[in-house]
């Protein structure tokens, strides 16, 4: 079904730690040359998955394949991978050059070639001239660049990045994120990136794997993860979202109508998500919508194509590029992100908010058992 070559394949991996199920039957394919992010809250199993690939952990059940070879029981030092850790993990008693040369010496690369490779990769991470510094003498950003260079210089089969940016300040994190993306595209090495930072995942990846409680919730491109989440968890975890509760009032060919308080809200049939997509009139459902998909205006006439509902402003925050406005609707507080700001608005102003049926997501509430 997949014509692309997969560099890593995990089949039915489970892992328990003292009775806690950390991985619950994971299947994952990583395509050649792609940058794949494992994203999820702490304890979701993303680091465990990475450690299975690296070989620091062995799955209780299931297998790991790298480039088609089964490596389930192969120790890390025989896997030929590159890895970058959260704590940089540079060898403190070695200079930058010696750190980079560590893997090359183990691979018995001739001396002349060692230097060439190191020079090349140092130029790549923009650290030329710092060969003889010790890690202690480098800044946090420089240390992480050296760590990346050390992983790349051995020309590994795979590059694994375990939350490499979480120890850096916001500005550096952004800078290095762009750099990792550039390097990855330049070198073309298949890369697996673990993070709990959704912004990082969305901006870096070719594909994102959203994990929760030891399971994969969704594997997709960043845009479709954001725009077409498969599950309630993905919708809530990625980006900001507003939710309403309601009852199905009518089911049509194109749209489902939901009675939420006194308002009737229409949702596209295509936007029904979750495991159970069979709806009946009277079912309790949840509706989700992103703040930037809610339109807000002072009058009812301005945008007639949308369903408009009366609301009251309760809070306004200026964010520089846009406004974050909290409104109260159907007895709930809803967040709106907008550029269409009317200077007459203030706390308590009566406004109208509206949305397109295609921007709402509908999920059936699980029946309590």
């Amino acid at each position: 079904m997949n014509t692309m070559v997969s560099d890593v394949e995990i089949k039915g991996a489970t892992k328990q730690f003292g009775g806690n199920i950390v991985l619950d039957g994971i299947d994952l394919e990583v395509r050649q040359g792609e940058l794949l992010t494992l994203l999820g809250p702490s304890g979701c199993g993303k680091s465990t998955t990475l450690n299975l690939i690296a070989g620091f952990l062995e799955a209780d059940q299931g297998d790991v394949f790298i480039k088609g070879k089964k490596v389930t029981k192969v120790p890390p030092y025989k896997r030929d991978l590159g890895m970058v850790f959260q704590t940089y993990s540079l060898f403190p008693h070695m200079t930058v050059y010696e750190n980079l040369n560590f893997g090359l010496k183990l691979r018995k690369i001739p001396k002349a070639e060692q230097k060439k490779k190191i020079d090349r990769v140092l130029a790549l991470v923009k650290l030329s001239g710092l060969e003889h510094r010790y890690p202690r003498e480098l800044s946090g950003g420089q240390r992480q660049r050296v760590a990346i260079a050390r992983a790349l210089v051995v020309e590994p089969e795979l590059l694994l990045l375990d939350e490499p940016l979480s120890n850096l300040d916001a500005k550096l994190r952004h800078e290095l994120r762009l750099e990792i993306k550039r390097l990855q595209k330049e070198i073309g090495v298949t890369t697996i990136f673990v993070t709990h930072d959704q912004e990082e995942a969305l901006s870096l990846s070719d594909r994102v794997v959203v994990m929760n409680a030891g399971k994969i919730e969704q594997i997709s491109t960043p845009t479709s993860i954001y725009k077409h989440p498969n599950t309630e968890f993905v919708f809530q975890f990625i980006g900001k979202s507003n939710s309403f509760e309601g009852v199905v009032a009518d089911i049509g060919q194109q749209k489902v109508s939901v009675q939420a308080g006194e308002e009737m809200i229409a949702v596209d049939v295509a936007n029904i998500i979750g495991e159970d997509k069979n709806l009946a009139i009277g079912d309790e459902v949840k509706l989700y919508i992103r703040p930037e998909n809610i339109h807000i205006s002072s009058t009812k006439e301005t945008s007639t194509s949308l369903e408009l509902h009366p609301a009251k402003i309760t809070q306004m925050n200026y964010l520089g590029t846009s406004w974050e406005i909290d409104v109260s609707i159907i007895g709930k507080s809803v967040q709106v992100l907008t550029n269409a700001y009317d200077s007459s608005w203030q706390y308590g102003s009566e406004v109208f908010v509206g949305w397109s049926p295609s921007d709402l997501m509908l999920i059936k509430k699980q029946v309590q058992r």
Partner: protein
Amino acid sequence: MEPVRSHADQETSPKITTEPPKKQKKMKKRRSWVPGLLLLVPILLFLFGFFVVPMLYILYLSFISTENLSGADAVYSLQNYITLFTDSYYLNSLWITVKISIYSVIVALLLGYPIALTMAKSSARVRAIITLLIASPLLVSIVVRNFGWYLLLLPNGTINSFLLNIGIINKPLNLLFSELGVVIGLSNAYLPFMVLAIVTSLYNIDPSLEKASAILGASPMRSFFSITLPLSLPGIISGSVLVFSLSMSAYVTPALMGGANVPVMPVVVYDQINNLLHWTFGSALSYVLLATTLLSVFIFTRVFEKSKFKEVFR
């Protein structure tokens, strides 16, 4: 600023590193230094009265070359030191002391390192149990322990009878009243210091370094020699310095385990002062012993701090 555990801790000196002194340092920074200094007054007075003064008095004595120590007819010269360095008995004694101390360091290191490594890798509970076991010999008087070794090491003791019975040897080994006996005794007695010094160093190594080394292709053996061992050098050195200094000045164990066959310096000094009442010569001997110890320790630590691993000691 410094999220890396290993770094912050490696920057402490290679002398034995335990938690409390570090905390004190931090507290001192926060408060004014005056009350801190006041707290030190009692111990400073104590050390001055009972350490500095006697040491200076002994140094003074070592330059008196007459038997009469008091008053006007005392003659000041380097005679004691000249005698010491020209008499092969005392030079030999110094050499034996140094030799035995070096052997004790080596034995303690070889026995202690694997224990420290095991401790560093085990869970907090196992670690606590091992620490207790390691430290427990310190609870038993050194004299009692020495007589315990007697039973094991005597010509007709446990070890010799066992080896004779299974036919590995056909006459008893000279385990007691020999340099070997003293080394067994000293390395055993001071093993806890070695283990605790090394384990402190090992705790401070970021565990992800070993992972980084493995993923770069290093086998566990290679990782140990390239990463763990060099990074534990501060512990090895502080442990060695401790064991060496303690062995150089040990009296009870060499006296009991070596007897007259192994005349180490502290035994000779004791003899001179207590049995022969040669106070001035004994004083000179003590100072030569002290100087030898300090010089050896200085050279030893210097060699490592200037070596290619100098970065480890920063």
